[in-house]
């Protein structure tokens, strides 16, 4: 079986993001494997463990530094890497086309895993676009998964926590949620092994994607200001509770 895992090199969620020129973030911060993609890699590696002759290929579209993210996926158990090199930030339309073209060029996928979203752009759409380009079925936000022959039985979480069970024929695209598994942490021997695994690099321009119908243009980037202020309600418990109820009703408008 041949499994592809699409991964993204994203800023560490603990990083302090600084915006430069209103268009881009300061990239001198730590970047790492998108956390949802860790679930995707884990799912792929677990599939591999169940079946001999399975290869897991980690694919990314990113700048030169994205190789570190591929190495992280390799340390978690992926067999080799495929790096589509670009000097620019790309939107999900280009990303999906690039991933599809690179995977097609590389082999025949039985399952393509992605994370349900990337924590930087939070678009939640690349997996659907990828499936559309490849003309494959897609299920995202998957919380459970098992394989029987040429189909997967998956549980995915829809609105308001509703769980739905589906049977999906292979090949297909699966978007992993946090609930799907607990990603393993690599050990130093895993990391050392990953240093020796192969990463093939292809240039985005060489994939000859053609022009997508639409283009996302970034006009302005502003930090989201979080104004969370703790408020201590004084007085006896009775008074404080009354005040809390009033605040929840009148200010927060949640009850």
């Amino acid at each position: 079986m041949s499994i592809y895992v699409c991964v993204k090199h994203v800023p560490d969620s603990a990083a302090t993001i600084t915006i430069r020129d209103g268009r881009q973030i300061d990239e001198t911060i730590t970047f790492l494997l998108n956390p949802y993609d860790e679930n995707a890699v884990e799912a792929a590696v677990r599939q591999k463990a169940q079946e001999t002759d399975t290869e897991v290929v980690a694919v990314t579209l990113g700048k030169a530094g994205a190789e570190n993210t591929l190495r992280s996926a390799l340390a978690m158990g992926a067999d080799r890497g495929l790096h589509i090199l670009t000097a620019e930030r790309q939107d999900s339309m280009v990303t999906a086309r690039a991933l599809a073209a690179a995977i097609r060029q590389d082999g025949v996928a039985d399952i393509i895993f992605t994370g349900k979203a990337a924590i930087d752009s939070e678009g939640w759409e690349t997996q659907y676009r990828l499936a559309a380009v490849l003309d494959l079925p897609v299920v995202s936000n998957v919380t459970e998964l098992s394989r029987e022959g040429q189909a997967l039985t998956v549980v995915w979480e829809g609105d308001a926590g509703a769980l739905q069970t589906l049977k999906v024929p292979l090949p297909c695209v699966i978007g992993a949620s946090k609930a799907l598994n607990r990603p393993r942490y690599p050990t130093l021997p895993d990391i050392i092994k990953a240093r020796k695994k192969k990463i093939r690099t292809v240039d985005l321009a060489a994939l000859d994607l053609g022009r997508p119908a639409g283009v996302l243009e970034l006009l302005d980037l502003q930090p989201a200001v979080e104004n969370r202020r703790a408020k201590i309600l004084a007085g006896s418990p009775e008074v404080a509770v009354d005040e809390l109820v009033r605040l929840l009703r009148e200010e927060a408008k949640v009850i």
Partner: protein
Amino acid sequence: MAEKYDAIIIGAGVIGAPIAYELAKQGYKTLTVDKLSDAGLGSTAASCAIIRAHYSTEDGVAFAYEGFHYWMDWENYLGRVKDEKGLAKFMQTGSILLKSQGHDWRKVQKHYDAVGVQYEEWDLDQIKAAAPVYELDEFWPVRRPEDPSFFDDPAKKLEGALFCPEGGYMSDPALSAHNIMRAAEVHGAKFMFNAEVVDVRAADGRVAGITLKDGTQIDAPVVVNVAGPHSYKINQMAPGVWEGCNIKTKALRHEVMHCPSPEDYDYYNKGYHTSDGDIGCYYRPELGNQFLIGSEDPDCDPQEWVDPDEFYAGQGGTGRDNQLTEAQWKAQCYRLARRVPSLPIPNQPRGVVDLYDCSDDWIPIYDKSDLPGFYMAIGSSGNQYKNAPVAGAMMAQLIDACEKGLDHDAQPLQFKMKYLKRSLDMGFFSRKREINTDSSFSVNG
């Protein structure tokens, strides 16, 4: 009219609080001021709070071992005070000092014998029985993972270890400072928070008091600088003090990493604090069954001296200073992973970044100053947490003796240790000393 106290202590960290406590017990009317909102929230909070006895000098060992008695008897030391936040707890894991080329352990052993520190000599089988996840190969010298030879196969085994069963760490360093504050308050000590000192005033040839950022002036004939990473800034505010120090202090950026324990190993309950000079790390259990990995500052690691105000302005704000450095994350985790190959290393770095207040020779300055009435307990980060209660007692003795006329520069105070009954020549900690070449120039002190 300005408020008046017998002594003002600048800094309510784990060294400042016990100075206030001991002075208050002697009848001094003290005021401790701190720029932050509660006791122990500065660099104390980020301390690894290790309680160990190995130091590179005999006096260092004695000083630390004296401290054990305070931590082991924490409730009584605090006068059985109640703290609404609860009491910090001494986690007595025992302390393993691996015999390696990274530590002069023969010297440490000699000092242990001289001071009477309880210890056992362990061979490799005993270490392995106690800590089965450790691989006991020699990896010396300490390298960085960027160096290809970092990954070389080891050729030799370590020699063994000195095991000190009384060692360990305190569960919550900030809480320990808070506990001491509550104990001090019983004796009338006052604490003032959100109070940043902007000037140390002098009059008639001696210290007269402090001025706060909001303009408040507070007078006292005694002012003690225990400002941690800000210590050099406070010294510069006091006329002639900074210039009168032969040994200076600076703020050093420092990172501590948290890695989960191997899944089938209960490091939190069964693990030991370990000093591992062979890989330039020390480690101890941390909540959540994690390894807390500190650095012993090997020569190959970069040192980043920073302005504390700029650093703390970045904490949680727009600076980079609240983030671990990726390269250092790898350095410290990979080093420990050579000792513990089953150590899981998360892709996302996590840990603590804070500042050390370091002196030129990594030995603190516990001293008077060239300005009468102005004292300092500084340069203490990295290796003095464990000594805090003893340092408090010693500084209180020094201040009282000097205020009663002792010429400490000419005839240094001989501090009497309450438990070990040894006396310690405080000249060892003098601001006027030459750089002590016996020092390890690291957290090992």
